[in-house]
């Protein structure tokens, strides 16, 4: 299945128990010869900031906000994300098992 990465941006993500975790805000990838593997998804836990970021100017300062822990971002390995329904991404793990992004 082919999906558009830019349309996944900002989609709400739910954990294995159906609880909302946040919104997809970035994709960490690695160049691998002729293609590009997606390694992890970054999920932002602040809905307000995430909702704003596509439209206003918060995107560039998200990194700053993240590093000052003003709002949290989780890193989800590709194996732990179920994108079979791209409109409702689901984690294969529970939210308590989430790791904070660097």
């Amino acid at each position, binding site marked *: *299945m*082919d*999906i*558009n*990465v*830019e*349309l*996944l*941006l900002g989609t709400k993500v739910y954990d294995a128990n159906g609880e909302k975790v946040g919104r997809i*805000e*970035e*994709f*960490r*990838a*690695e*160049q*691998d010869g*002729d*293609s*590009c*593997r*997606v*390694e992890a998804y*970054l999920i932002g836990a602040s809905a307000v900031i995430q909702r704003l970021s*596509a439209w206003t100017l918060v*995107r560039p300062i998200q990194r700053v906000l993240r590093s000052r822990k003003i709002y949290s971002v989780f890193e989800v390995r*590709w*194996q732990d994300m179920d*994108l*079979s329904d791209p409109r409702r991404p689901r984690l294969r793990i529970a939210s308590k098992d989430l790791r904070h992004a660097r």
Partner: protein
Amino acid sequence: MHLIRDVLDKQLIDREDCKMGRASGLIMQLGENTQPRVTHIVIGGPALWMRIRPGLRKLSTKLAHLWGPKRKEPVTIPWSRVKTVGKDVNLDVEAKETGALDWELWIARHIIERIPGGGSKEEE
């Protein structure tokens, strides 16, 4: 590499240092239990309008049928053609062959070159 920060909306440059638009979208291939891979960069057109409002994509496709180059599918560049990802994304392609410059060439031929002094691409 971060896809949104480093690839999306970046200027795409071809083999000859020619600007060929910006990355409007990225296509990711998902498998049942395989690692997702980004396979194509999408340029311009409908992909762009989808990001604002899905309805705009239909509108833009309808308008594109009225005039301009008639193109059925959106322009995509395979990821294998990506040379470097830095301030811009450098591609190992020739812009004219990808379809990325379809609108540019159409406007050049049908409008610009018809006006005196517009010059002609034929001379290249």
